[in-house]
């Protein structure tokens, strides 16, 4: 287990949701960076090199699945853990999410404790 | 060559039918009965000479009718 703090990139086009998640992450000792759309997320991922990305699916422009695909195909970010966070909550949506390269698929509205636990676990054990 | 050209122009058909009936007339009784066996045409028996002469003329007529195609068009 590494002593250094883990970095989390939060991506969502709804700033109010990001406010909430940012608080939860920082409270649990993660270093947080935020992005409001797909392109921004890709750019920040390159510079920030997060271990974990919490990714909204339905965003204007490039959607979350596309972001995930590009991340997976980029050497520097191919190993990053991706948590899809979306309002699309059917079983089919979940399966689709996993097939698109997500590690975890959480639906909105999420449970705060669950999100924190999932991120922590991924950070620790991969 | 279009497929239509397989058929003769309508003008030709009466000519050909005419030749057919002309032949029937010339190669039949009573005309052929007119020649007696003691008639000779330059050393040839008359009937013998008549048959092959008419025959040849018919051939020439048929050939001419068939070949006159360009004129019809």
């Amino acid at each position, binding site marked *: 287990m590494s002593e250094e703090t883990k970095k989390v990139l939060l991506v969502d086009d709804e700033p109010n949701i990001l406010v909430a998640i940012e608080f939860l992450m920082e409270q649990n000792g993660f270093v947080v960076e935020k992005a409001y759309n797909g392109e921004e997320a890709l750019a920040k991922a390159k510079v920030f090199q997060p271990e974990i990305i919490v990714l909204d699916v339905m965003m204007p422009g490039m959607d979350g699945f596309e972001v995930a695909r590009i991340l997976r195909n980029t050497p520097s970010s191919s190993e990053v853990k991706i948590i899809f966070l979306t309002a699309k909550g059917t079983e089919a949506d979940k399966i689709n999410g996993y097939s698109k390269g997500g590690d975890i698929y959480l639906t909105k*509205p999420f449970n705060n404790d669950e999100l924190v636990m999932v991120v922590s676990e991924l950070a620790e054990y991969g | 060559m279009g*497929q*239509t050209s397989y058929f003769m122009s309508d003008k030709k*058909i009466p000519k050909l039918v005419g030749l057919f009936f002309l032949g029937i007339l010339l190669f039949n009784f009573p005309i052929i009965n007119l020649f007696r066996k003691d008639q000779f045409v330059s050393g040839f*028996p008359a*009937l013998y000479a008549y048959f092959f002469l008419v025959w040849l003329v018919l051939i020439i007529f048929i050939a001419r009718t068939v070949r006159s195609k360009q004129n019809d068009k």
Partner: protein
Amino acid sequence: MTTSIAVFSSIVYILVLFLIAYYADAKARQGKSIVNNPYTYALSLAVYCTAWTFYGSVGKAASLGGLTFLTIYIGPVLIAPLWIFIVKKIILISKSQRITSIADFISSRYGKSTTLGIIVTLIAVIGIIPYISIQLKAINSSSSILAYQSDWLGDLLDGSAFYLEKAFLIAVILTIFTILFGARHLDPNERHEGLIAAIAFESIWKLVAFLAIGIFVTFGVYGGFEDLFSQAYQDEELSKIFSINDSGIESWSWSWLIILSMSAIMLLPRQFHVMVVENTDPKFVEKAAWLFPLYLLLINIFVIPIACGGLLHFPNGQVEPDNFVLSLPLYYGNDLLALFVYLGGLSAATGMVIVAVIALSIMISNNLVMPVLIQTSLIKESAKKDLSKTLINIRRVSIVMVMLLAYIYFKYVSTEYPLVSIGLISFTAIAQFLPVVIGGLYWKNATRKGAIAALLSGFFIWAITLGWPTMADAGLFSPYTIENGYFGISFLKPFALMGMDGTDHVAHSAFWSLLINVFVFITVSLNTKQRQIEITQADLFVDIEKYTQTGGDFEVVKRKAKLDEIKELMYRFLGRESGKKVLKGFAKTRKIDLSKMENANAEIINFAETHLAGAIGAASAKIVLKSVVKEDSISLEEMLSILDRTQEVIQYSKELEKKSKELQATTSQLKTANKRLKALDELKADFVTTVTHELRTPITSIKSLSKIIYDNEDLSTEKRGEYLSIVVRESERITRLINQVLDLEKVQSEAAEVKKEKIDFNDLVQKTSHGLEEILNQKGITYDFNFPEGVLKTLGDFDRLTQVVLNILSNAIKFCDDENGKINLSLEKDNKMITLKISDNGDGIKLENQQLIFEKFTQLSSQKLGKPKGSGLGLFICKEILRQHNGEIFVESKEGEGATFVIKIPSLN
């Protein structure tokens, strides 16, 4: 000359023939046909001149039939000009339907009738066997005369064992060669280029040989025509040869013989084969129409001189007149010429035998054996087997059978008669086809039943007036009937029916058989109805010109079948290799990919049928295809034929057409309605998803943030305030959404009547737009609002109309250009309407979407906003509100050039 030389020369000659055939076949495979020209075609027609011509003409003339022999050649010469349209028509029909024999032709014309195919085949076989037998007779006797010095081979051949008998061996050798020429492999078109090349060669040889002997007699033995004729004229008896009167032939018989030969030149199975089946270009007929009469003229010109010469040298009948041609050169010790002439006679005989037997074998296998095999279960048992082998074997067996019958006839009948008499028996039998063929070509109402009855009755008369009495005369049966008539009734005497005594037997038979034939044909045809397929075929035959001119669409049947099954059939009957080749060629010319097709269309089925017809006959092909093809009960072609004929049906079909159009209209209406319903259903599902999403998003923030506030009592006041304000805003967002959904319900429910009061629309728009100015300034959007002076009165609900204006303006704000946003508003009034225009400078709306955006649940995703904001209800609500106010709303836009929303509402004066 010794037997060995004669036999050896004959074999070498036949081998040369075979080499020519082989060469021509090889050339044909390279695509360089040596038979594809009118000269070869005309020469192949000369297969008409058989041993009968070669030996028999002289024989007939010398027996003082005089010029009677000429009738056999005058008939073809007279009818030659008519070939140019009759034979051409037959060829075109046969090519389009892949007809391979005269039996196939007649069967096809009368509704692809199996029965007719069988009848024609049987008549042809029975009729032609005597004809083949006289060729055997000619080869047999001519070889005997040539080989006057018997050597070891002669001794061997004179042995008592039947298989060493010369005629039998000749039959065997001819059988083998016929099989080699015509039944080595199966050609779907029954085209044999090698055979035709060999036949053309034989025609040249026999002509040259006959001219050689003619010149030898006239100018070698005598001092030219004049000398020969004057010597002949000295003899009172011999001089009869120059006369018609003295030949004893009456004008009656003369005419009938010409009619018989006219029909023979076209209808004899071998003539039909070379003239029609082997024809490569219908235009060749034109040249052949005068080349062939010329050939006949040349081969006949020396008949009388040779006959005179023969009679002058052999006055006492020590030499049979049929053999003069060969006896004269031998008499003068010119063995080499005799051999040349003998080979000429051999070529005349072999040419006839080979072509006739091949033609008959095609008929027997395709029109006699195949229909029986197909209808019994024999074919089914060997379901997966390649049937092309079976077919070729049937051909071979047929050839053997025909030759065997000819040999038997030769053995017991032919020896008793001169060549010409036997040949004419065949001609009379074949002439029975004439009425049904000519009627079939030019008379649409000729029916299958009429044809069957005509052929059977005509052939029956032939049988009792010529076929049977000839055999009785030869001593095979008791001559009682010939003398006393059938059943002892005197006016049923075979050679003097109805007391018509004293006429030539052939003319007598031809007269009665054709009279009855034509009478029955016409009477029965007029009193029977055609089946549908007969009507179709009658049209195709009689109006072939029409069909070829309209582009060769010969059949328009609505038929369906699995392509695999069609393929399988073709492989079975044509052989796998050649079947594949044929299909490949078809796919290539039509530019279709057969591997991707599951079902065979009508075109493929027709193609398969014509090709199968080539291999197994039209009637058999029809039956075979029936097993895999589903035919619509009323096909188009049948419909068309019926339309041609009955007014009643025209009326009926018009009604049908109307009904079907009505049905079609109804169907398409239903389809449209169904589509709309489906689209609405999808829209509804989308709406639910959208609303759900729109609800979840604010709820997520609210839930998460309130939990944070609840869990973290030590949160700074600042943060707590910030989070709480977010919670409030997001709650408002949910409220708005719910209101909008409720609005929709309200607008849609008819019960919610619009309360209409007099309002000032100018005031309404001004108030609404001023309320938005703050936001516009915040976003840096430039705007240009133009309001007219005074009051614009209208009747309406103030709140609702405000909602509309607000909605359109909000949209404009949302969609106008990001950086240099610009919004124009103009309001004006004409006589009746108040017009409000609000335009932005955003992306614009595609033409196809300009209607759609006013539909319920429709949201356009834009490049700028990506996921649509809002519920997709706004514009629909606007439209509904304006509808309730007797106004309208629409959009004018070009993609990339912004959009202008136009609102019209009636003004109140």
